[in-house]
């Protein structure tokens, strides 16, 4: 009988199939680094606090929180009905475990920065956990948005990426893992029979050009990011509607500042002047050029910083200053022509077009370029851990806080390029600690200028960014960053 009811529910409520360029390599919020992982984690896991539909912070796994008078401690009481997908209760031990695992150096969690403000977490009763902070916090609940994991599924707070949890995740979110399928897709089922969408399937569709067609042929119900060139096609189809999504994203070419000759600012400036960024952008779609680490609509974008322009004469001058001479059409130093390798993630949409175009541009300017595309595991190992690369072609996406601290702070966990400028550190500290929005805006606009001048990266563009959903999916409200946060309100007809 139960099977009949649940089957009937699924038929009525339907299966929402969405496409990712690449299936998440692992499903474990301790190690999430990509948007694809963030999206599936949003379905499977919950945090103590989260955004409501108007993006105000509300309790989720938490029932309530009490801040000490000096704001250095908070006691969070968990909901009595919060359960893991295996039916067991979410406990204070799970919260304590999660925070400790994220902070554990040996775990090397990508989320370490998000719990850095918590100095200690201890159980404080059957349903309560006490959090101590390194300093007074005005609204700590705004930071308690990282996903909570079930302690019982791990042996210790030192967790490896290869832990069995990655293929058998247990969460407390609105969907639970049904199965990994042979075609790399992942099927999830709703944890309640009242869900408007009974099943969600993440389909890996590595050919981005094919995704829009699948949506039009009704083999998908959602595309999380539409290629700019597919926008006209989709907007004229009445079975599909477009929603703005992930708009705080920007592309960059990042230099490995620990490697010669990219540690030389003259060489970085010269390389920047050799590249016609508009010509790189044109074939892949429409977007806005950028001069720094924010999109143009950001309150932190410094509009006084000029965009980089191709300047062959200027590039030559800089290369000569850096000790290079042009021999046989190639910039050479010590008898060796300047050769660099551009590294990109295999799943980065349109990266091949950009890389090939870049290779051609730099070769005509006298620089040999090799291009490599890495699978996810190799990317994590080479870029995130070992930092073995010359030049990265990649994209960062930010939530509405547009917090670039981890990317540009000297000790930032996502500072792959090894950028370090004490003055920028001071500005980032100032921005973090600001109690006045104008103080934060000014600090980050100054940081924009300084980072642009230091050129740890060549800032490229932000692309027009929309998700597309079938009109069969009703009551859609897309979270601007996590996508699925409000999936409980969606319905399939």
């Amino acid at each position, binding site marked *: 009988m139960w099977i009949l009811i649940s089957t009937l529910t699924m038929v009525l409520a339907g299966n929402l199939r969405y496409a990712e360029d690449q299936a998440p390599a692992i499903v474990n919020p301790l190690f999430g680094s990509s948007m694809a992982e963030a999206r599936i984690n949003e379905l499977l896991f919950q945090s103590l606090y989260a955004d409501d539909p108007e993006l*105000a912070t509300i309790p989720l796994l938490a029932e309530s929180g009490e801040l000490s008078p000096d704001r250095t401690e908070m006691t969070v009481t968990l909901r009595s009905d919060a359960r893991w997908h295996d039916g067991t209760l979410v406990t204070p031990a799970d919260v304590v475990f999660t925070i400790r695992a994220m902070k554990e150096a040996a775990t090397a969690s990508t989320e370490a920065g998000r719990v850095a403000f918590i100095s200690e977490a201890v159980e404080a009763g059957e349903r309560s956990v006490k959090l101590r902070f390194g300093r007074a916090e005005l609204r700590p609940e*705004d930071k308690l948005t990282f996903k909570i994991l079930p302690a019982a599924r791990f042996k210790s707070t030192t967790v490896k990426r290869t832990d069995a949890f990655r293929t058998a995740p247990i969460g407390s979110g609105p969907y639970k893992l049904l199965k990994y399928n042979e075609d790399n897709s992942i099927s999830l089922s709703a944890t309640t029979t009242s869900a408007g969408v009974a099943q969600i399937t993440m389909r890996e569709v590595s050919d981005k050009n094919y995704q829009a067609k699948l949506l039009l042929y009704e083999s998908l119900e959602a595309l999380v990011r539409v290629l700019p060139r597919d926008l006209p096609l989709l907007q004229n189809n*009445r079975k599909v509607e477009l929603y703005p999504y992930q708009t705080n994203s920007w592309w960059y070419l990042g230099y490995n500042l620990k490697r010669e000759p990219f540690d030389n600012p003259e060489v970085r400036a010269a390389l920047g002047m050799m590249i016609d960024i508009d010509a790189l952008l044109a074939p892949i779609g429409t977007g806005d050029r950028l001069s720094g680490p924010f999109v143009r609509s950001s309150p932190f974008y410094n509009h006084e910083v000029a965009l980089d322009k191709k300047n062959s004469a200027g590039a030559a001058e800089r290369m000569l200053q850096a000790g290079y001479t042009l021999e046989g059409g190639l910039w050479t130093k010590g008898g060796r022509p300047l050769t660099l390798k551009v590294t990109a993630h295999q799943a980065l949409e349109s990266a091949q077009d950009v890389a090939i175009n870049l290779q051609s541009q730099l070769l005509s300017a006298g620089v040999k370029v090799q291009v490599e595309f890495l699978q996810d595991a190799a990317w994590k190992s080479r870029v995130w851990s070992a930092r073995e690369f010359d030049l990265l072609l990649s994209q960062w996406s930010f939530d509405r806080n547009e917090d670039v601290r981890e990317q540009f702070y000297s000790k930032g966990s996502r500072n792959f390029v090894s950028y370090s400028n004490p003055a920028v550190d001071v500005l980032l500290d100032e921005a973090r600690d600001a109690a006045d929005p104008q103080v934060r805006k000014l600090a980050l606009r100054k940081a924009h200028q300084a980072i642009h001048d230091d050129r740890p990266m060549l800032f490229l563009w932000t692309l027009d960014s929309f998700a597309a959903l079938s009109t069969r999916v009703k009551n859609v409200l897309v979270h601007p960053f996590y996508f699925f946060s409000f999936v409980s309100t969606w319905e399939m007809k």
Partner: protein
Amino acid sequence: MGRSTWWRRAAVLLCALGSFSCDGQEARSSGVDATLAMGWIMRVVQAPDTFSTTVDRGGRDAWIAFHRNDFLGATTGDGAVARRAWGELAVFYDVLADLSRVTWVRLGDTWAARGGPPRGSVLPLLVGWAQNDGEARGAATGVDDPVAGPLMNAWSGRPAWDPPETFRTLPLGQRMLLHAQIRAGGADLQALRSAGGQPIHVEVVAEKPGLNRALFDPLLYLTLKLRADAEAAAITPPVDPLETQLFSAGFGVPAQDDTSVLAALGVALPAAGAPAESCRNAARSLDTALDGWRAELGSLGDPASRALLDELRLVEGLRARLLTRWAVSALDADQPACALAYAELALDHEHPREVTPINSPTLFAALASARMRTGNVRLALDALEALASSFPEVLALDETLGDLSVLQNLGKSGDSREN
């Protein structure tokens, strides 16, 4: 195709091909939806000569600007087109004025929730101004700026406002005087548009010596709206119906208002308080009706008429303007979720950051307002960014909305991901 030949070529083609009567008397609308066959789009297609005459009468460049939603450019035309352009600008500035008001109020509320406004700041007074068009003398409590406080309290918001002589030379006094002059019909509107990109008041940030806080003009868009209304009213209304209806959000069906036309098309706007999905459904019904009509128009068999429809994107433009009007009405009715649905569906995603014949400035303003009111303040800034190059005065709102967005998220640690 060049500006000078753009629609004339299409119109001449229509006449030359002889498929239609160029005086508009012979209607060949067989098969086309009976209601819409009487509307202005059909009349344009059937009588391109009349269309050309109308366009030439007001100034072709002005009509081209109007069609492109370049309302400021269209105000340089004569008669109807200028009147309508001022009217469109009034609507645009009205949406911005309302967004500005709500933004200032939420900024005040957010500061209050965080323990109160910055010490000594005139911010509470500006919030009061925004709420009450300057008549907020009581809001001065706690404002200890010796110049700004009394000056702002002295502002009456009335066109005949005459500030005390001692205030006239101060930047703040000059701005307020400019407001009064613009509202009274004196001074060039451009003067206020240019000034609007500059702060109305700069004050020292008490907790950060050496840093100034820049506050922008909360009354800017209201004054611009009032002036645009006055400019429109000063131009004699057109007699020719086509001048009133061309490139409008109306169907222009004689003796029928748009509500009854919509009803005839099977489109029912949802009642107040209906969920956003109902509003999306209404927009989908409109699409069904217009798509069917466009297909019928295309099947009339005349390549010239199809060229005219395609070049001017007449049906698409009507759709976008209708949805934008619905979005503005939904904002007025305090239904921001519906307004958001209409505005998102109106947007031409092929050029989502540009004013185009489909994407009007009012659409971006409504989109910003709807996003802000539904809680997504940061995304509202994206919509305003699209207006920045054409309307530098939007900077004032952009900075204030930016302050709100940042203030709401102060102390949060952000999340970032690759790809």
